[in-house]
């Protein structure tokens, strides 16, 4: 069985070996404990993530996904993006966010009865501090979203349960900024240790960077009580090693699988692979700089977009574990324009457009690096597709970490791979290249009526679809796997283990 599978996939010696290893490791051990059900309570979940020596409890500066997964278990969120909830957010330690009619002021109401682990009540002061902490404690850029839209200097806490946040300029999507990644910490927190007061569903009992974290259920948690007694977060940087650990029963859940690993694990007894749902998928795109030749001609951009066989990429690179993109960001978010026609795969039309633009046989170089699962492989297929329409395309492949390391140089590349984490389109739009889109995004963010905002957003997306600079081929979700008996893990931008259950 091992040999036939690896032959069938035929992805080279190394991959075949990894595959056979993984497949072969399927002993019968995971068949035990097969009873599964909502009544399962207690127990310990052992979950493995990439992690690494640079792990830190300071989630504002934590560079690894594991840091945020852990922080989310320890610190309650203010609110969370939730496409199924009203206004696109569900609430945590806040109970509501109200916007003034002129969109210049947001009022945050704090939920009653939330307590920190040191027994003190969570008040508006703590919420205000939590909002300011990314700036005060020099958080990573992704934690600074709130400061991009709000004037935190002028924010106030008029009473114990209210925070008033003035905007920098009127915006309607302030909830998205507040709810993307903000967690509640206690006023004055400057250090993050296992003893730091927190208000989330779990508390840390022990932590060693690059090795593991043990967490215990927080009995004073305000929300739905977790079923698990404890969680162990294990750091295993290498993907193959994570898969081996799952197969041998050393851990119950692993996150961050490559599509090939997922394909290998799928259909193997005792394990289940799960793929994140939309909108929680990273946007993999190839940007064609409209300021550089030959991409200053919109026909060339359209030709490139038509030349790429997206279905082939989805099947051959992602084994179906990805969502086909339509050259517009934000797939799955409420504002995404679902009426847009899916871009066709039409190499003949692409050739014609290139000929019309006088760009037949042009030379281009696509720069890519392994920054997202399948990025380089996708770029390879894109280059092949471009060669098929007569473009002299070649791939420049960078080592891991190099693509974004020199951002100034990256920004100047005429044709480059990139990705953006799951996020709504408007607040993350970078203005400059398309003034018409800039104006529409401005309206979509600040018009007073919801219809007007949505209509402007859709118009902007239509413009981008027609003339934009992105060849947005794929939305790539996180892939995870668990042994039988594990359930309740929410695959959001990062996996949420708070409501997980394991059968005994």
């Amino acid at each position: 069985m091992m040999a036939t599978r690896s032959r069938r996939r035929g992805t080279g010696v190394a991959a075949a070996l990894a595959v056979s290893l993984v497949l072969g490791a399927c002993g019968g051990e995971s068949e035990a404990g097969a009873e599964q059900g909502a009544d399962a309570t207690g127990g310990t979940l052992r979950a493995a993530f990439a992690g690494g020596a640079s792990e830190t409890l300071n989630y504002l500066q934590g560079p690894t996904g594991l840091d945020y997964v852990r922080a989310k278990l320890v610190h309650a969120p203010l609110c969370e993006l939730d496409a199924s909830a009203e206004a696109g957010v569900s609430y945590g330690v806040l109970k509501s966010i109200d916007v003034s009619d002129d969109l210049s002021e947001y009022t945050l109401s704090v939920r009653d009865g939330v307590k920190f682990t040191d027994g003190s009540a969570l008040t508006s002061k703590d919420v205000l501090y939590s909002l300011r902490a990314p700036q005060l404690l020099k958080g990573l850029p992704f934690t600074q979203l709130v400061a991009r839209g709000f004037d935190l200097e002028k924010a106030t806490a008029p009473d114990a349960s209210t925070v008033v946040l003035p905007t920098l300029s009127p915006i309607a999507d302030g909830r998205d900024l507040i709810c993307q990644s903000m967690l509640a910490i206690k006023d004055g927190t400057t250090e993050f240790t296992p003893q730091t007061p927190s208000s989330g569903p779990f508390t840390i009992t022990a932590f060693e960077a690059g090795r593991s974290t043990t967490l215990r259920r927080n009995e004073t948690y305000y929300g739905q009580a977790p079923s698990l007694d404890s969680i162990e977060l294990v750091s295993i940087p290498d993907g193959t090693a994570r898969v081996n650990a799952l197969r041998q029963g050393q851990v119950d859940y692993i996150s961050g699988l490559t599509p090939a690993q997922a394909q290998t694990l799928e259909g193997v007894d005792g394990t289940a692979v799960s793929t994140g749902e939309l909108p929680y998928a990273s946007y993999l795109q190839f940007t064609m700089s409209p300021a550089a030749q030959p991409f200053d001609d919109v026909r060339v951009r359209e030709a490139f977009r038509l030349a790429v066989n997206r279905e082939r990429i989805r099947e051959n690179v992602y084994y179906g574990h990805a969502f086909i993109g339509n050259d517009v960001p934000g797939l799955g978010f409420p504002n995404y324009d679902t009426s847009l026609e899916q871009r066709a795969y039409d190499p003949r039309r692409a050739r014609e457009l290139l000929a019309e633009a006088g760009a037949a046989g042009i030379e281009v170089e696509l720069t890519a690096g392994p920054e997202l699962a399948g990025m380089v492989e996708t770029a390879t297929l894109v280059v092949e597709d471009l060669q098929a329409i007569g473009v002299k395309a070649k791939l420049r492949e960078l080592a891991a970490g190099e693509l974004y390391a020199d951002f100034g140089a990256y920004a100047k590349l005429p044709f480059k791979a990139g990705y953006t984490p799951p996020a709504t389109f408007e607040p993350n739009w970078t203005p400059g290249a398309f003034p018409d889109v800039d104006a529409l995004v401005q309206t979509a963010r600040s018009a007073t009526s919801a219809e007007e905002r949505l209509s402007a957003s859709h118009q902007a997306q239509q413009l981008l679809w027609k003339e934009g600079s992105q060849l947005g081929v794929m939305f790539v979700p996180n892939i995870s796997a668990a042994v039988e008996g594990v359930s309740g893990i929410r695959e959001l931008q990062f996996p949420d283990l708070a409501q997980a259950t394991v059968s005994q």
Partner: protein
Amino acid sequence: MCAVTLTVLSVLVFWATDILPGDAVGAVSGPDATDAEREAVRLALGLDRPPLERYLDWGGGVLHGDLGTSMVSGTDVTDIVGARLEASFAVILPAAGLLLVLAGGLGTWAGLRAGSRLDRALSGTTLGLIGTPDFLIATGLLLVFTLWWPVLPAVAIVPLGQSLWQQPELIVLPAAALALGGFGSTMRLLRACVVQSAASPYAEFARLNGVRGARYVWTVVSNAAGPAVHAFTIMLAGLLGGGVVVETLFNVPGLGYELTRAVGTRDVPLIQAISLLLGGATLLVLLAGDVLVRLLDRRHPREGQP
């Protein structure tokens, strides 16, 4: 002399990381940061200062025992390096022991019986091993000992509060993979030294004078030991930072693994600390080898006199 070498090394490493395209700002900021946010990160990391000033600042800290903080996580570099060093040692020392016994024993045996069936079989095996990349050896071991005969854990997961030393079953496979990886070349070098020594007039003289058995073996081996010890120490120094594949596959992230990650994220203080440590350790190992050879040389005339 060591201090001069290490200083030159630190300057070279600093210069090399400085001319690499990009810096930690890119790694820390991610794809979505605005220019203003990038600039703030650059200021916070102190990367706006001229390289010479940053180097002198770092060097001053090192003289006072402060290796600085990681640019990526803000944690103390000493802590990171300490943990990685422990993991490296836990695997390398048993690997070195295994290497010494295997390569030393078999190398001597094959050398003394050059041309025999055993020698030819060993030559074939070692040539095969030299030609086998580390990941293949490691994967083979995983296949045999975690799958076909599942007696060992595939991945090292050390319980909190314990160290890798306390879990010998976690060390066996990575140590064996490292030892097998180094076995081929070390054994062949030893064998060649022993063959040469056995063919020397000196050994012939010993044989003609009736030196036999263990005493003869020792006569030949101690004569061959100089180059052999050198070969072994160079192999050992290579293991210190060179076991990246094995470290990755068995989840025992040691110095080599951490260094490659640090270079990827342009984490200069961490790169500097690990390179210095590897440089220092290599010098120490080579020095120990030289001292040992000198000691053997001194003993040799006494032992060798018939």
